[in-house]
């Protein structure tokens, strides 16, 4: 509103604001929408770290779409769900909220808080089906949002540490083990991992173990009921997780996620198993850090024929069904589905866009993208097992923590996971 401070509309709004301050019952919001042709779209997100980048991106949109102003507001990630829950229920919510993907999106859809966009937005067909699945209603199969980004999970490494110690990116499991043993001998922590934060654990498990249990093939078998998480291959993949303990800091159970980031960026650990969302964080925290990424090689007896990068769709933009500016919101969503926006996502946000045809000028990103193209797999527990209570990720996370504490074994953790999701999950043959 301040940007158009000179216009009469803003003056009126300002008076309304003042009045609102004096008389508690007078509404303060929704003043901008009522004035003339100019529309202000409220966009909400949990990416506080990307506020500047988003403002730059939406400037491009505003220039191409005169009359629409985008008011971008970011809230802290950990509190975003509750803010969104009440925000979509109330009258002053966002026009275009960034919403979670897959199972976490369903409560919003079931409550009728979002509008289906199949007939409103062009270009959805170009998006990969596995990515678009994250934006669909489980019950009605309709699309409710434009996916923003794909996250892939890989092993990041510090190129300088590798070079100084004459180490190469491993291509076989034996090389991978030898690499970590060498680092250990030289007194360098091989991997930085925040075991204290449970949500990081299933991510780590899929980075080292997805190929062992068979990635996409296993996904199909679990969903149709021919296999369960107690399958020997899945248990073996958790055993790999347990075996990695010696390559982590001695007191790793007390290391938080942020500690592990600092450990890696300050050069105290050589590798960081994590998601592509780390690339931007690492770049801003430690601009001089020289990083690369690789897919963990095939472990012995792996079910998958090639190494894989687990991946999932992350972040969707939707239209609030209570929005008073649906036309403008549709205009924005259409723009968010264009390669132009996709390219801005790649360049300014350092994320892998969901839109095909985007190129990556950043070397680190290109490398991670190439890895992903060589072997894809779903980040299984997030993609398929967050449609009920308890969430698959919320069950496995603490179980893996217990493995690292020595209170649980791989088979026990797998059983607990199966018990937890059986609470709501029924296979569809």
């Amino acid at each position: 509103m301040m940007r158009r401070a000179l216009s009469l509309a803003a003056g009126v709004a300002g008076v309304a604001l003042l009045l609102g301050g004096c008389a508690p019952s007078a509404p303060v919001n929704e003043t901008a929408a009522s004035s003339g042709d100019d529309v202000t779209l409220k966009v909400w997100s949990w990416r506080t770290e990307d506020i500047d980048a988003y403002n730059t991106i939406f400037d491009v949109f505003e220039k191409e779409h005169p009359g629409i102003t985008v008011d971008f507001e970011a809230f802290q990630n950990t509190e975003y769900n509750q803010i969104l829950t009440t925000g979509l229920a109330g009258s002053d919510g966002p026009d275009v909220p960034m919403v979670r993907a897959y199972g976490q999106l369903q409560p919003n859809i079931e409550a009728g808080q979002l509008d289906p966009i199949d007939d409103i937005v062009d270009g959805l067909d170009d998006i990969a089906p596995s990515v678009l699945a994250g934006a669909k209603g489980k019950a009605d199969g309709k699309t409710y949002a434009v996916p923003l980004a794909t996250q892939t999970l890989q092993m990041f490494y510090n190129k300088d540490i590798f070079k100084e110690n004459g180490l190469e990116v491993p291509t076989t499991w034996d090389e991978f083990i030898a690499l970590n043993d060498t680092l250990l001998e030289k007194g360098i922590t091989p991997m930085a991992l925040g075991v204290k934060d449970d949500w990081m654990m299933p991510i780590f498990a899929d980075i080292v173990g997805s190929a062992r249990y068979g990635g996409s093939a296993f996904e199909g078998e679990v969903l149709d009921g021919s296999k369960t998480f107690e399958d020997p291959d899945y248990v073996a993949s958790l055993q790999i997780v347990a075996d990695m303990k010696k390559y982590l800091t001695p007191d790793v159970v007390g290391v938080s996620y942020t500690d592990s980031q600092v450990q890696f960026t300050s050069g105290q650990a050589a590798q960081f198993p994590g998601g592509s969302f780390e690339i931007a964080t690492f770049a801003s925290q430690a601009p001089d850090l020289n990083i690369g990424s690789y897919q963990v090689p095939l472990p012995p007896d792996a079910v998958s024929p090639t190494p894989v990068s687990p991946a999932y769709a992350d972040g969707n933009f939707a239209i609030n069904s209570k929005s008073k500016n649906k036309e403008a919101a549709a205009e924005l969503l259409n723009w968010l589905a264009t390669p132009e926006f996709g390219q801005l996502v790649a360049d300014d946000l350092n994320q892998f866009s969901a839109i095909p045809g985007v190129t990556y000028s950043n070397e680190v990103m290109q490398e991670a993208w190439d890895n992903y193209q060589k072997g894809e797999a779903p980040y299984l527990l997030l993609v398929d097992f967050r449609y009920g209570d308890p969430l698959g990720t919320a069950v496995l996370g603490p179980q893996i923590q217990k493995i690292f504490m020595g209170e649980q074994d791989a088979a026990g953790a797998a059983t607990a996971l199966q018990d937890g999701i059986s609470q709501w999950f029924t296979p569809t043959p």
Partner: protein
Amino acid sequence: MTATTSRPVGKRLTLGSFLGSGFLWLYALIAIAPLVLMVLNSFRTMPEMAKSPLGLPLEPSLTSYQKAWITADFQTYFFNSIFVTVASVLLSTAVSLLAAYAFARTKSRIFTLLEGTFLSGLMLPVYLAILPLFFLLDSLGMVSNLWSLILVYAALGIPFSTFVLTGFFRQLPIELDEAAKLDGAGSFTTFLRVHLPLVRPAIATVIVFRFVPVWNDFFYPLILIRDQKAYTLPVGITRFFGEYQTDWATLFAGLTLATIPLVVLFLLATKQIVSGLTAGMSK
């Protein structure tokens, strides 16, 4: 202060009193060390801290404070927090004074019931009621309005404040009222002119003990405030956590800035609080 006039009992320097004061100093160290560390680290830089967690700021740097104050928009949050806290504490103290006076000067079942209801408010996990509260304020069009926070905090302060104040009013001898009545004063005048000045220490206690939780609360503004210009300091800080989660120096600077006003308030008011509490306990 009462303490200076009352002579301590044990006057000789015994082993016991030596150990006693040793314990007092030791605990003082435990209480203050983490806070000192927070302040010291706010003057250091991130790489320094990652290399050695313990250390003095040999070359103190103020960049963290600049970052916190300017980029995080702390000044706006400060102003909002002061407005909300002062207004809500004053409002809740005012209505609680009136109610407490009534509880202390009436004898009727309905007032006992009301007093009990207010008191039970102390035991309610009130934040559990956030959803209906949000819908209520939303239907009144008050979301993102600082007055919604003020009213909610004022209401939340009533159980504690009436509990403390009622006790004080009950101690005031009934003869005071009778004398005032003979002079022809109405009940409100009696309350204002006779009783209010006498419960001043209690008012100080209530104000300070409500000021602290309201100033520090982040839960209600998180849900009720959507406009960044209306953020209070604690919400500003949670947002700040998101942006600077691995930039500890800046975080420490922000945390220090957020804590200073309360410390100043408390330093100014310790005497009042202690005498207020003592007066309340002693009768």
